[in-house]
């Protein structure tokens, strides 16, 4: 680490990757320098007094100074002025970060849920992040590989955020921007990337067990690469539609519905029960009852998850009512049937 570049604030912050982030960094440098000067005046003064006025003899007297109106006025007024500058500067930067009403050149609907982000482009391209693969080789790591969301450089991008369950917050350090995803509300995250590269998205609002795992990657590329990526995705989607129901179900399970975040297919326990060997077998519930898992049971569990709680698991799942189509439920059931 280069300690000298602390002064210029460039060594610890990620590369400023959007038009707005450079302005944030300028404000940061002002805050850092003015804060450092204030710190030196206050603490430096204190340290000098400690040594200069150290009690040397037990009967040493002190000066009798009760107040000094001019000094007191100055050390109230000067901090006030500096803080008003920081306030106004912060406001102007904030205004550029928010841009609530502005329409983007590219608009993406982002839905947060425990513990994944779904990005949906206007042309139905859908990215669900993170993937179900581990990010690191480390067996103890709980981080999953973030899926890549592609946007073009130099354009205004607007993400329209909402959440299906609890509060989440969409944060890209390199963009110096962050916005909560609130259930029942739409918020926007607008940015204009100026640097190409991969930038990590974190969730910064605590949302439960896998909060630290809710990552995605935003890849900023030039316009042609963006168009090529979109064409490739659209072709892949068309291909998927020609597949059989079980394959479509698998894509939904791992992809946009994000079932794989909580349910394994190999018998291991994640958050909810595994789907291995589910279909046609007996399910025991927390209230002591049990049922054989059939189409009706699975459909009910997707639409009204709290109706029957599997013994030993928390009632953590939220309803997919309104988020899933009738055919998609059928595809999921076909997929579950294959998990012997």
């Amino acid at each position, binding site marked *: 680490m280069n300690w000298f570049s602390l002064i210029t*604030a460039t060594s*610890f*912050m*990620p590369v400023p990757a959007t038009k707005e982030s450079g*302005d*944030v960094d300028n*404000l*940061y440098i002002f*805050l850092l320098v003015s804060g450092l000067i*204030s*710190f030196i005046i*206050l603490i430096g*003064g*204190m340290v000098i*007094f400690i040594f200069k*006025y150290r009690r040397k003899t037990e009967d*040493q*007297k*002190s*000066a*009798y*100074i009760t*107040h*000094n109106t001019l*000094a*007191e006025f100055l050390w*109230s007024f000067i*901090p006030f002025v500096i803080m*008003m500058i920081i*306030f106004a500067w*912060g*406001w102007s930067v*904030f205004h550029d*970060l928010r841009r609530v009403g502005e329409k983007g050149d590219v608009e993406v609907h982002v839905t947060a849920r425990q513990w994944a982000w779904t990005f949906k482009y206007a042309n139905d391209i859908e990215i669900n992040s993170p993937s179900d693969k581990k990010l*690191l080789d*480390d067996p*103890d*790591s*709980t*981080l999953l590989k973030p899926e890549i969301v592609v946007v073009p450089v130099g354009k205004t991008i607007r993400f329209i955020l909402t959440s299906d*369950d*609890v509060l989440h917050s969409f*944060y890209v*350090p390199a963009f*110096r921007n*962050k*916005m909560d995803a*609130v*259930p*029942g509300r739409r*918020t926007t995250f607008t940015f204009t990337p100026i640097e190409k590269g991969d930038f*990590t998205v*974190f969730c*910064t*609002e*605590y949302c*439960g067990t896998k*909060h*630290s795992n809710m990552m995605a990657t935003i890849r900023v590329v030039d316009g042609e690469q963006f168009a090529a990526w979109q064409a490739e995705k659209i072709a892949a989607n068309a291909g998927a539609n020609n597949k059989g129901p079980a394959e479509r179900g698998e894509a939904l399970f791992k992809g946009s519905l994000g079932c794989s975040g909580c349910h394994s297919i190999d018998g291991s326990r994640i958050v909810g029960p595994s789907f291995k060997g589910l279909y046609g077998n007996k399910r025991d519930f927390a209230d002591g009852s049990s049922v054989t898992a059939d189409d009706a049971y699975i459909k009910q569990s997707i639409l009204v998850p709290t109706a029957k709680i599997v013994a030993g698991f928390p009632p953590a799942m*939220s309803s997919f009512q309104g988020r899933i189509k009738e055919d998609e439920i059928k595809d999921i059931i076909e997929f579950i049937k294959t998990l012997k």
Partner: protein
Amino acid sequence: MAHEQHNYLNHQKGIWSWLTTLDHKRIGIMYFVAIMSFFFLGGVFALLVRAELFTPGKTLFSADVYNRMMTYHGAIMVFMVIVPGIPAIFGNFVLPIMIGAKDVAFPRLNLMSWYMLMIGAAITGSTLFLENVDTGWTFYTPYSSIKTGLGVIPMVLGVFIIGFSSILTGLNFIVTTHKLRAPGMTMNRIPLMVWALYSTAILQVLATPVLAITLLLLIAEKTLGVGIFDPQLGGDPVLFQHFFWFYSHPAVYIMILPAMGVISELVATYSRKVIFGYTAIAYSSLAIAGVSFLVWGHHMFVSGQSEFAGVLFSFITMLVGVPTAIKLFNWIATMYKGSIRLDAPMLFAIGFMFLFTIGGLTGVYLASTGMDVHFHDTYFVVAHFHYVMVGGTLMALMGALIYWFPKVTGKIYSDLAGRISWVFIFTGFNVTFFPQFILGNMGMPRRYYDYLPTFTELNQMSTFGSWLIGTGFLVGLYGVFYALLKGKEAGNNPFGGKTLEWTTTSPPPHENFEKTPVLTGGPYEYR
């Protein structure tokens, strides 16, 4: 034992006489024992949380266990240690003596406050054994209301009851300060510690009921399914944040104002100098208390509230900086041309000013909307509020402990033990929390169980620092036992203090003074 003086400690005997005592001094000691036990528990959780973060991935516990420990660390430290800490322990002990009163205005209410804290703590603590809570100490909806277990109900019920303890203590202090001052003690002659406690009490009485109502609404939502915060029932999850921070932002000042009172006393006594700008320090406490009610929205700059609301809250938040700066400047001006002794309490006062200055200045970053968006809910915030609340309040708590120890027990606290403790705590704080500012710059969010490998070194430094802090507090605790068993006799005024508590015996008699004192001048008249 033959020539032992008559004092509040030997006024009555037996454990029952303690549990039913109406003496504010004994209640202060009971608070000390209780709150220090909670502090120990919260500290163990802190060390475990930091230990888990020593390496990325799983180090010791699963994610769920980590989230629970993080929740209990926060809830215990905030609701059971730092909020009641200085007012309940030292406020109870010294406030009546400092204004020349025989006791607080409502001694029975005072005892009841202690029992409410104990009952609340027991109910909250019971969730550790029944059903652990993993919401974080802020209990944000809808996670707390629909996505996690029923343990949240007893947890917040306990906090609700603890809140009443806080309200009753505040009420008691306000009435005591207004009604029981000794003859000649005008409001402009009361010690600054009393001013700080008085301002805190106003906050406790006015802000805490909002928390109580909020927690009741949360319980109602969780048990009866009324749709206040749950969007699926037509509620608004952000409304909870408004309610919660309407209490919890003033609560930050409930935590720090009493600490500021302690620092005023320490700086005056150990500089042997009249306090600089008494009026400014006294009224800046009231100003901080007043403004603190209007700044809660700065916790919500990225919550989806309107841009205008964000800007307005940013403006008002900046205003809090001014009275805070006034206090710091006044303390340092008090040291100018003083006669300074660096005894352990003064070291803690200096440590307070050092850490609080860093905490305060980084608070300006977070008050500025454009900057806060980057730092919000990252480790920068964790570092900031630990510098303010922990560095500030716990430094003052340790200073107060060593400073008033002779008055409370009649024994001198070993200055050497105090200094060793200070070195560990002060160094440890900086090693623990300074790297967290850098982690925040790099973009590491808070409340993370697992993190990217790039964050590893700084997290390890931070964990190492937490062991130093732990060692420092253990040394401090050792000092308490050592002083109780082997401490030297203190005498009435070992440090040359000028406030009223130093004019009575150590320990004081049952009703504080043999003869009611009469005041002819202000406090801190070192001439």
